[in-house]
């Protein structure tokens, strides 16, 4: 386990390093003066001079990169072009909204999707199984940003059941929860389908194993066999799927935040792109990507913890 852990951590660190390199070189690959490109046409000459000094643009490029990495490691991601506030501070204010949305969206999908997959696998070709099959392909095929727009149209504009815009009054838990429902529904819907299908497929495979037959032969109730014995093994590929699919989840979260005007990281990046505020884009993209890499890492470690065979694959 220790060898696997070291190798896996090393791989993640290398990927994060390359991601930083890509984000850093994006600015230098575009022809023109980096400070002018990064700050956009609206920046004042003083701001450009300050940025050039801050980024050490007179140093050689590799030196600039090392300085950038050094700063990023100490939590300094630069300053906002317009307000001069540290990027780290701005991200800190916004990331809570994104994490709440991602967790709620994934949460309801897991709570609904995994039991649905189990029930479908216990009685293959039953009515429930067929309905689940069609529904899951249906939910997977509808792009999540379209789910967001249509949910907004139906529940907020037409029926007026739920608020359409923002994240609710600060401090008012009830209001904030109401604002969370629609975006969480939109980003989680496809995952109900994914999870149900994945759990069903691996569950069907596990249910054919001999130890499940033994458990049945001992007279355990079907519920105990499924949830106590089969699910433990069948859940493993699902954990990988959740880890790998987290990137897609971040993409749909960006859309949901923009469509519902929710002040999270995705909206922050989008607004910064529109205003050509590159330091914020760079910092927020780095944070979002690092988040994804960490989730993939955690899911891989979790699998290796459960299943010793995996440890030998790296």
């Amino acid at each position, binding site marked *: 386990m220790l060898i696997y852990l070291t190798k896996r951590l090393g791989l993640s660190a290398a990927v994060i390093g390359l991601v930083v390199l890509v984000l850093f070189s994006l600015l230098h690959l575009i022809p023109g003066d980096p400070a002018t490109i*990064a700050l956009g046409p609206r920046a004042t000459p003083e701001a450009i001079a300050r940025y050039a000094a801050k980024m050490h643009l007179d140093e050689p490029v590799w030196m600039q990169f090392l300085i950038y990495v050094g700063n990023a490691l100490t939590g300094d991601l630069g300053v906002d072009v317009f307000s001069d506030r540290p990027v780290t501070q701005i991200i800190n204010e916004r990331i809570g909204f994104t994490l709440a949305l991602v967790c709620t969206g994934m949460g309801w999908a897991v709570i609904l999707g995994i039991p649905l997959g189990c029930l479908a696998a216990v009685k293959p070709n039953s009515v429930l199984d067929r309905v689940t099959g069609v529904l899951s392909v249906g939910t997977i095929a509808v792009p999540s940003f379209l789910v967001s727009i249509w949910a907004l149209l139906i529940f907020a504009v037409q029926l007026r059941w739920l608020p359409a815009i923002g994240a609710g009054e600060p401090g008012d838990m009830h209001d904030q929860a109401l604002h969370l429902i629609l975006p969480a529904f939109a980003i989680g819907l496809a995952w109900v389908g994914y999870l149900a299908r994945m759990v069903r497929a691996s569950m069907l495979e596990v249910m054919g194993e001999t130890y499940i037959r033994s458990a049945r032969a001992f007279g355990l109730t079907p519920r105990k066999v499924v949830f106590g014995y089969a699910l433990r093994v069948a859940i493993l590929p699902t954990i990988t799927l959740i880890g790998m699919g987290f990137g897609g989840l971040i*993409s749909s979260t960006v859309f949901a935040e923009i469509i519902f005007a929710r002040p999270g990281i995705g909206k922050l990046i989008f607004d910064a*792109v529109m205003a050509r505020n590159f330091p914020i884009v760079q910092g927020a993209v780095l944070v979002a990507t690092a988040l994804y890499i960490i989730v993939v890492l955690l899911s891989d470690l979790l699998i290796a913890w459960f299943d010793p065979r995996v440890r030998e694959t790296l």
Partner: protein
Amino acid sequence: MIPVSAKPSDPETGLPAIDSTGLPDHVSEAEVRESAARERLEKIRMFMTNWQGMGGLVLVLLFFASAIFAPWLAPYDPNALDIPARLSGPTWEHLAGTDQLGRDTFSRILHGGRVALKIAAIGVSVALIVGLVLGMIAGFGPRWLDNFLLLLFDTVRAFPTIVLALATVALTGPSLELVLAIIIITSIPQYARVTRTATLTLRNTDFILAERSLGAGVFRMLWHHVMPNVVGPLLILAAMDVPVVVTVEAGLSFLGLGVLPPTASWGTILNEGYLVIRDAPWMVVAGGIPLILTTLGFTFLGEALRDIFDPRMGKGR
């Protein structure tokens, strides 16, 4: 019914001799061909009776036809303004209503399909070819190259697609070429990984070993013997990838980061509809339907093809 062969049995082992075609002597070549043809027919029959696959095929053909023949099918010029009829609901004159400038939404949807088709065709085929080549290099090349390429693939996959697109657009401004580049770069790793795994398996098979010992070059082995074995699953993967590509294009255009406004795209139609969602709700409905039909079509088609031609692939996805 087995034709009796005149060939002698092997003098040392007493087993039936194997002739130059490599077939056991009680099987003729014609029989093998006939059996292969029967199997192919059986698979086509299986596909024809699979309602999901046929439904998918119909939707996919509809997508191709409507995009290719859009200029002849569209009742109006997609950019013709008709200000008095702006934001009209669905009527017989404007089947899907009009937008805030009085442009006919149905005509714009048909023309928007052309953008989607262009992006999907170019994006998927380029990504598939590059992924195939890189995957074979990774699987057949030296270990360090394999590790390096894997690290590159992991890095590209570490960026959520939309986030990478946002970061790039921040510097270059929106354009269709950029959307295409982002789509190609982010979809290469999945093709490359599938190819690499298949190549690694093939690398240790007897027929590759035999070829190698006969002195075949690496290029010949890859082109004639590895690629034909890999390309089938890749094509199925490509069918499943089209919905993703079409969605990314529509999503970026929706954000105003893809196709630029006067050009019709499903994403720009949705964006314009989103801005007037309170006054003209049918615009986002009409703009979303072709997107859903296309993704459904390709998903159903890809899954049916996979279930019939490559049942093993269904696992682990």
